[in-house]
């Protein structure tokens, strides 16, 4: 009898790994009947995980820590992270108007390295302030997200305090392009295909990609409820193996066409297969990057502290690194 395991996922291209595990036979080969639960927002995914509607989820790495720590808007939910799921290929897209103002204000900066282009925002922000104009508004996908930290870091590298000199909000990615086109926002940090979309429609310009801000930054993980993972270690190992084998399959360029078609289905991501295929190239972790690296936790906690979300004493930070369970990964893959 196959064990039923329910995993939540957000409809993004990097949900490829759990989807491939469920649909490509990797889960059933391990004796697991993997049932996927599509959550259209991170808040919904978090609630489902916190209140036991799912056993685990494809989840933003900082959200997993926030949920474990009890600062994510729901009661603390102890989690374990036995697999890393992706580095993603996020980018920051600006409105044409803002991009052109930056080019006009500091052409030499805009011609230089993308990671430092926020320096060209300084004269724009100063001019706005002198003219009494409202703050520039940027959005990301969720406050406990790498997108949020990448935007803050890019701004900080340009000498701008993202917490006091601009507004940073949250909008669901499918609404970002129209919000940019309508002038509600001046820019956003999101994964693909949402940057590509704005460029194709001629309403935005990509100013920098993740590779120039935070190249090794972890993006998504597999988060499991700690009580569930501990209740049946063999079952947990089987799930880890299914996910890692699916990740290897996803990382093979030969499978990209099949994967794109699978993800294109409305019950998964629900976008055109060719658009997905185009974005898949940079979204998958390199092979062997699925083993959770406890050093990622330290990096994430530093970013959460810089964002004003969580400031923990060192010993508590060390305690949190134990959420990342390389031992579970090693045990399952041995």
């Amino acid at each position: 009898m196959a064990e039923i395991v329910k995993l939540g996922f957000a409809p993004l291209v990097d949900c490829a790994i759990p989807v491939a595990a469920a649909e490509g036979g990797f889960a059933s080969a391990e004796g697991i009947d993997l049932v996927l639960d599509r959550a259209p927002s991170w808040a919904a995914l978090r609630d489902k995980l916190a209140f036991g509607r799912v056993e685990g989820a494809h989840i933003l790495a900082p959200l997993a820590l926030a949920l474990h720590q009890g600062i994510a808007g729901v009661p603390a939910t102890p989690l374990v992270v036995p697999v890393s799921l992706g580095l993603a290929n996020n980018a920051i897209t600006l409105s044409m108007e803002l991009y052109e103002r930056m080019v006009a204000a500091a052409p030499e900066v805009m011609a230089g390295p993308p990671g430092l282009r926020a320096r060209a925002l300084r004269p724009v922000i100063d001019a706005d302030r002198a003219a009494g104009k409202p703050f520039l508004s940027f959005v990301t996908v969720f406050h406990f997200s790498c997108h949020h930290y990448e935007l803050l870091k890019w701004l900080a590298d340009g000498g701008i305090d993202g917490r006091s000199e601009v507004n940073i909000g949250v909008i669901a990615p499918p609404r970002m392009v129209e919000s940019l086109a309508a002038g509600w926002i001046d820019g956003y940090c999101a994964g693909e295909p949402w940057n590509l979309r704005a460029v194709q429609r001629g309403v935005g310009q990509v100013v920098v990609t993740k590779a120039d801000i935070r190249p090794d930054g972890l993006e998504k993980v597999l988060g499991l409820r700690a009580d569930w993972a501990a209740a049946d270690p063999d079952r947990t190992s089987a799930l880890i193996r299914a996910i890692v084998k699916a990740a290897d399959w996803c990382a093979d360029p030969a499978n990209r066409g099949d994967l794109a078609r699978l993800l294109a289905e409305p019950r998964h991501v629900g976008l055109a297969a060719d658009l997905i295929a185009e974005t898949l190239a940079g979204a998958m972790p390199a092979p062997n990057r699925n083993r959770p690296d406890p050093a990622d936790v330290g990096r994430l906690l530093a970013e959460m502290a810089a964002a004003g979300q969580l400031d923990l004493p060192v010993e508590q930070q060390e305690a949190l690194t134990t959420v990342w369970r390389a031992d579970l990964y090693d045990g399952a893959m041995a």
Partner: protein
Amino acid sequence: MANPEPNILIIDGNPDRAAVVERGLVESGWVRVSTIGPSVNLLARIQALAPDVIIIDLENPDRDTLEQMFQVSRVVQRPIAMFVDQSDSQMIHAAIEAGVSAYVVDGLRQDRIKPIVETAITRFNAFDRLRRERDEAQSKLQDRKQVEKAKGLLMKHRSLSEEDAYTLMRRTAMKQNRKLSDIAQSVITAFEMEL
């Protein structure tokens, strides 16, 4: 407090369900209810309405926007997620089951919020039941149309009486342990292939 009646805002991508929930709340005596659909300028709308309680469907993508807004905004009074207060886990599970989530301005007493959320849960469930019943009725109608069509084909091409055509399909369905509408569909497909 000048106005003891809580100001309730319903955010729902489904206008029919929003109307059902709104009516339920008004009929139970909460008259200060407003509703909005999906919106690109959510913050401005919420600022204008200044709700004490926000009822929003659990799956609504705007929830991510709301939560960030509540974390940083200096203009909106900070509502918190209903799920933070775990004193009534039975209600929380009922809410999740029904697909309801709620945000409540800090300081509003739990005993005043509970009946509002419970009303929303009841209404969400009622809406769900109505929709299910409608879908079932539609699929039953569809089944009956299929059976009629198959019967007509058998009568025309196999020169059977109406009763014999029906009996033949029913007997086949019983023998194969399948639904009558499935047999009807097979009959239709078979004739379509012959034509």
